[in-house]
């Protein structure tokens, strides 16, 4: 019987099978940020276990609230900083070099096909875009990961999502994943790994694949995963060129991870995107999704472009294509948060930051900030934000606020008109 990519990765990392359906895996990368890690560090210290299994496999960043907004967040940052120093964690990213974890770590080449990755963050599934098994975990799992380099999971079961057809102009990965979540509902993929397949996925760049995998957890999935191919190899080439004779050799090696033709899937979902319209959420659950035309005309107070879902250079380019030569609506506050310093710098080089500023956007440093309502763009009671982030939970961006999730293109269109708008109306 053939194996899925997830089954292959699990088999290659198996340390222990403590019960028939449970597998303890060796970890290749343990990623840490300042919201969920400090409490793990303090707990390990208190228990006399302040050790790390392998400082080279730990990657740490201060990203959620940076620069700190108050003394509590400054303390969290300090605990991380001191810990990274104490254990000689080289890959630690502090102010000036820090960015949103799930955008920053791929950019640094830390994630490779076949890897096992955990982080105390639910959107760790993003890294599945590289053909890795990457899952969000809680603080106790993180502590064990830091200390022992292992994590326990249920034996993998996979939901295969085949994406076929041709993506219409103005429709992006964000629209595909919102539509998938709508079909599956918020717990339709619980305990499953979502394997994205099909010609549409093959044609997506890494940025778009990350957007897809990023939101797999919003349908309850343990992770999203894409098969690593030439696109993956080209993205990683600066980091792997010394390991392979040629790009083709890397592609061939990556292909050994691919799911076998006779692999068994728990479930399969096929979606044809040829007629897909831009998607947008309403309400407070990410499966409450409609075609954008159904919500057209709803007023927004703020537009937020950024986050691990859509804060990469490709997203900023897409938004800028609409903002160029236009000014945002009077009543709208536009906020751009490039996800990493490299993205910010690239956007400067390409003149995109100027386009945003000329249109009336405020440009912030890389951080999670408003995405989780902790800083840098929190909503007031009753306010509405068109956002490129991944969660529209009640109060997520501020108590009493409401978030409509959408693609960067749709968010830019909302900024110009001040209401939810089909981006096609502004594309020319």
């Amino acid at each position, binding site marked *: 019987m053939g194996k899925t990519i997830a089954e292959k990765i699990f088999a290659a990392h198996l340390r222990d099978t403590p*019960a028939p359906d449970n597998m303890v895996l060796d970890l290749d990368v343990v990623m840490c940020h300042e919201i*969920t890690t400090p409490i793990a560090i303090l*707990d390990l210290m208190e228990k006399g276990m302040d050790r790390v299994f392998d400082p080279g496999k730990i990657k740490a960043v201060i990203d959620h609230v940076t620069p700190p907004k108050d003394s509590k967040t400054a303390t969290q940052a300090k605990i991380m900083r001191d810990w990274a120093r104490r254990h000689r964690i080289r890959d630690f990213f502090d102010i000036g070099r820090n960015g949103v974890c799930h955008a920053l770590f791929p950019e640094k080449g830390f994630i490779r096909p076949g890897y096992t990755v955990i982080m105390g963050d*639910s959107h760790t599934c993003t890294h599945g875009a590289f053909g890795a098994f990457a899952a969000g975990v809680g*603080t106790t799992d993180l502590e064990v990961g830091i200390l*022992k380099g292992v994590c326990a999971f249920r034996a993998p079961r996979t939901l295969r999502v085949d994406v076929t057809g041709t993506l219409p102009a103005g429709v992006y990965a964000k629209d595909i994943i919102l539509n998938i979540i709508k079909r599956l509902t918020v717990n339709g993929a619980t305990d499953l790994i979502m394997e994205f397949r099909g010609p549409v996925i093959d044609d997506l760049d890494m940025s778009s694949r990350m957007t897809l995998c990023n939101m797999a957890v919003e349908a*309850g999935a343990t992770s999203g995963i894409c098969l690593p191919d030439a696109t993956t190899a080209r993205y990683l080439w600066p980091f792997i060129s010394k390991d392979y004779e040629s790009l083709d050799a890397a592609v061939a090696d990556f292909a050994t991870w691919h799911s076998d033709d006779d692999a068994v899937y728990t479930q399969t979902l096929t979606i044809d995107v040829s007629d897909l319209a831009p998607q947008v959420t309403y309400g407070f659950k990410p499966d409450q999704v409609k075609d954008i035309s159904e919500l057209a005309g709803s007023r927004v107070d703020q537009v937020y472009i950024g986050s691990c879902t859509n804060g990469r250079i490709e997203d900023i380019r897409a938004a800028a294509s609409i903002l160029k030569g236009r000014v945002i609506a009077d009543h709208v506050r536009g906020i751009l948060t490039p996800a990493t310093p490299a993205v910010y710098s690239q956007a400067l080089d390409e003149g995109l930051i100027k386009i945003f500023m000329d249109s009336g956007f405020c440009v912030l440093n890389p951080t999670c900030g408003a995405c989780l*309502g*902790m800083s840098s763009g929190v909503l007031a009671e009753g306010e509405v934000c068109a956002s490129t982030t991944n*969660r529209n939970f009640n109060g997520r961006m501020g108590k009493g606020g409401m978030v409509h999730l959408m693609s960067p293109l749709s968010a830019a269109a909302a900024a110009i008109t001040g209401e939810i708008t089909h981006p096609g109306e502004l594309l020319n």
Partner: protein
Amino acid sequence: MNTFGGPAFFIDRSDINTDEIIPAKYLTEISKKALKPHLLEDLRLENSDFDPRSPALQKATVLVTRSNFGCGSSREHAVWALEVNDINVVIADSFARIFRQNMFNCGILALEAAPEDIEKMFNLKGEVEIQVDLDNGRVTAQSRETGERVESSFTMNPFDLKLVRAGGWLAYADQQYS
């Protein structure tokens, strides 16, 4: 190991996310105790008033709810917010994966029971007391007012049971893995 059970509190909604269990603004706390007053602070229920400070919730050690409890953010703070309020059992139709694992990792219980049984528990009158029999995989809910009982069974993954018996994943992993 803890004994599990006690007064129950019922929340009649599915898909309660961890932002609702403990809002992000409290994630800057580095002590679990500090989360105590903020449990379920932002929860809104459509058809009833929900008061996070209600005496019934203060007294409860068991939470009974519907499906997909604990979805969203991975924050273990959601589990700790329950723990520091002495709630060490959540009974639901189903859980989000990370939340469920976080519960067992802390050595406390996320029990999945049949929706029909949960419905019956919701229908019990007045104050309800719940007993959990881990060895036999049974839950008994009883109304203090009428004496009426609902019996239900749950199957626990054997590994999760090991974690609970060991007092959580850190203690277990420390013994088992070098």
